[in-house]
């Protein structure tokens, strides 16, 4: 009966979306292809979206840091303008500059759009075998403060102090986002990950804010767990976790741990939610300069991030269609890129997914 409900639900979504198309309601998305394999996986995603007839209009922009008035580094104004108008972005991997004089582009984007929540849903991919099956959790990480505030001092020679900043506002904001996400995506529980036994005041404040916000979301179960207990249980039985919310550093480590459980950064989607309704979805793997331009890249991570984006925009039907096509292709194992264990080219993999998407119509 749940299946019937889902079928009815998807039929309803389809109906709504077809009305939207007929009303020429194309939504604009800022596309940032990125460096290295970025352009080829971005074009793969665009092809698949075209095959799915998704009502998305892409606006390609480049982000290379430029020095603005006043000497501060910033992203190019046309990129900022496009993002402010469309509010939704899809980003490929960006090169990390070494000794370029400016901070990393990811940091600039984060600061420009106040991207405060990093969301990583980790779902086991059927067909891509890892020692862990049935993983289905979401890590929500506070992205603006915490241990990554970048405030460090040398007190005396040989003694360095690094400051971890926890504020009431940021903690409340991320907790609210986590519970809203849980509610919107039908997740049953939210777990706050902390180390308040050692960092009494800072994680204590974070925990208090989570508890306060939990009071307003009585339909979602709220639990708290120490970081070490989460790590211990995660590698033994990841099925016990649902939505996890935590400060910056723990989020960094745990989200990568969970990505490792499902197969690595090449198949993990990620989304960054900002203030004012801005959201940028991205693939978190590197630029892979050694295979750039050779049609060997795996577009799965960027594709799944794009599916996350569709869901965020309310286009659940298209999201499900593309996701199903992608998972079916991987499960079939006939056409796989090298990192997934096959020897097909990126274009072949993309074509296969496009074919399945059209078949699903």
């Amino acid at each position, binding site marked *: 009966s749940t299946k019937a409900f889902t079928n009815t639900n998807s039929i309803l979504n389809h109906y709504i979306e077809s009305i939207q198309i007929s009303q020429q309601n194309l939504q604009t998305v800022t596309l940032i292809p990125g460096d290295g394999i970025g352009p080829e996986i971005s074009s793969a995603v665009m092809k698949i979206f075209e095959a799915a007839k998704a009502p998305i209009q892409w606006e390609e922009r480049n982000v290379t840091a430029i020095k603005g008035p006043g000497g501060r580094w910033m992203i190019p104004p046309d990129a900022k303008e496009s993002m402010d108008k469309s509010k939704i972005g899809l980003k490929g991997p960006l090169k990390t500059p070494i000794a370029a004089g400016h901070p990393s582009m990811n940091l600039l984007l984060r600061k420009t759009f106040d991207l405060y929540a990093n969301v990583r849903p980790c779902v086991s991919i059927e067909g891509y075998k890892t020692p862990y099956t049935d993983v289905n959790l979401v890590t929500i990480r506070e992205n603006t403060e915490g241990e990554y505030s970048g405030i460090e001092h040398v*007190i005396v020679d*040989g003694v*360095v102090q*690094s400051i971890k900043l926890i504020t009431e506002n940021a903690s409340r904001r991320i907790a609210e986002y986590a519970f809203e996400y849980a509610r919107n995506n039908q997740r049953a529980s939210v777990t706050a990950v902390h180390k308040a036994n050692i960092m009494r*005041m800072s994680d204590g404040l974070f925990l208090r804010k989570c508890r306060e916000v939990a009071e307003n979301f009585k339909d979602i179960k709220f639990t708290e767990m120490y970081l070490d207990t989460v790590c211990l249980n995660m590698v033994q039985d990841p099925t016990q976790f649902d939505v996890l919310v935590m400060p910056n550093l723990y989020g960094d480590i745990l989200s990568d741990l969970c990505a490792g459980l499902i197969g690595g950064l090449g198949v993990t989607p990620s989304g960054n939610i900002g203030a004012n309704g801005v959201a940028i979805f991205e693939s978190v793997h590197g630029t892979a300069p050694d295979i750039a331009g050779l049609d060997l890249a795996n577009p799965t991570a960027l594709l799944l991030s794009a599916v996350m984006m569709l869901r965020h925009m309310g286009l659940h039907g298209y999201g499900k269609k593309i996701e199903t096509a992608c998972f079916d292709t991987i499960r079939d194992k006939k056409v796989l890129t090298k990192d997934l264990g096959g020897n097909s080219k990126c274009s072949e993999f993309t074509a296969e997914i496009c074919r399945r998407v059209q078949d699903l119509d």
Partner: protein
Amino acid sequence: MTARSICSLSRALKAVWSDRLALSAAARVHGAASCNQRHKSTYTSIPPPARYGGRHTVTLIPGDGIGPELANHVRELFRFCCVPVDFEVANVDSSLASEDDINNAIMAIRRNGVALKGNIETNHNLPPSYKSRNNLLRTTLDLYANVMHCQSLPGVRTRHKNIDILIIRENTEGEYSSLEHENVPGVVECLKIITRPKSLRIADYAFRTARERGRRRVTAVHKANIMKLADGLFLECCKEVASGYPEIAFDSMIVDNTTMQLVSRPQQFDVMVMPNLYGNVVSNVCAGLVGGPGLVPGANYGEDYALFETGTRNTGKSIANRNIANPTAMLLASCLLLDHLKLHAYASMIRRAIISTVTEARLHTADLGGQGSTSEVVQSIMKAIQSTGPMTLSI
């Protein structure tokens, strides 16, 4: 009074009376460094503590949760094997806000030099001035190295096989400095302190241990791409020490990549050295990979004292007093204790019996997926010792 005890007394006084600002951190570090230089020749091996009539006295802190029952099993086993160790029990009550009982425990450990403990719960609903008792023990006694050896045990079903990782974690500074303040309401700052002497000390400990145990590679775990000064200093110290051990390979890895590699291919790691918080994460991940918190013992070594406990430091409140806790970790910790006291024959005998019991699936406790009880496991270990070992008491 010997020079060393004056030094440690002054260090203790400094810790108790000095103001908890960065200035005191520098002063403490300076004091420790000058002591280190004087005793450089002896700090390679911790001297075995005093023996009276051929018997050692060891401080025992039962702790909370499953601690007391496991401590009783340890005593039972030692009595059965006629191990020449007497336990001096120091109870620490985690519900009281006064520091008297923890200070008594610390004094007992200073007196005996060695301790075995269960985890003491930290009630984080008490005000922040109430510090974690476990942390207080470690920092006051300067137990700077936490050593955890994670090995795949035969008979325990895990997703990964052939894991053999030695984790060496800095135990006294880093993120666990307990220096926090709220300058503006709603904005809390927590200080992470990394110092050169302590980083050099832990790196040296790691490489020395690797050399002693015939290990071939040491990996430093860090996040120096973000915390450039703090973890950068730690990494620099590790590199410096590595140059003095040319036969041991040294590499480094960022902590998030490390956790990803650990869940996909843990066999690539040999010895790992890292600051406090990353050590917490990595040691718990590795303990989970080899079978859980019930199997891995942990040891905390300082220059003058040694403290043994379960590796992942859990109180196990939910399974307390139900006779279902896994005693393996605590019993293996007691074997590490016996090795430290140079009672190697007893240590090997008990360890052999524990390993043979763990391979029997019928006796696995709930955390390993079985239905055995704690007392069954301990009885089986005692039977194994009796059948192979020298004279023991009757069961």
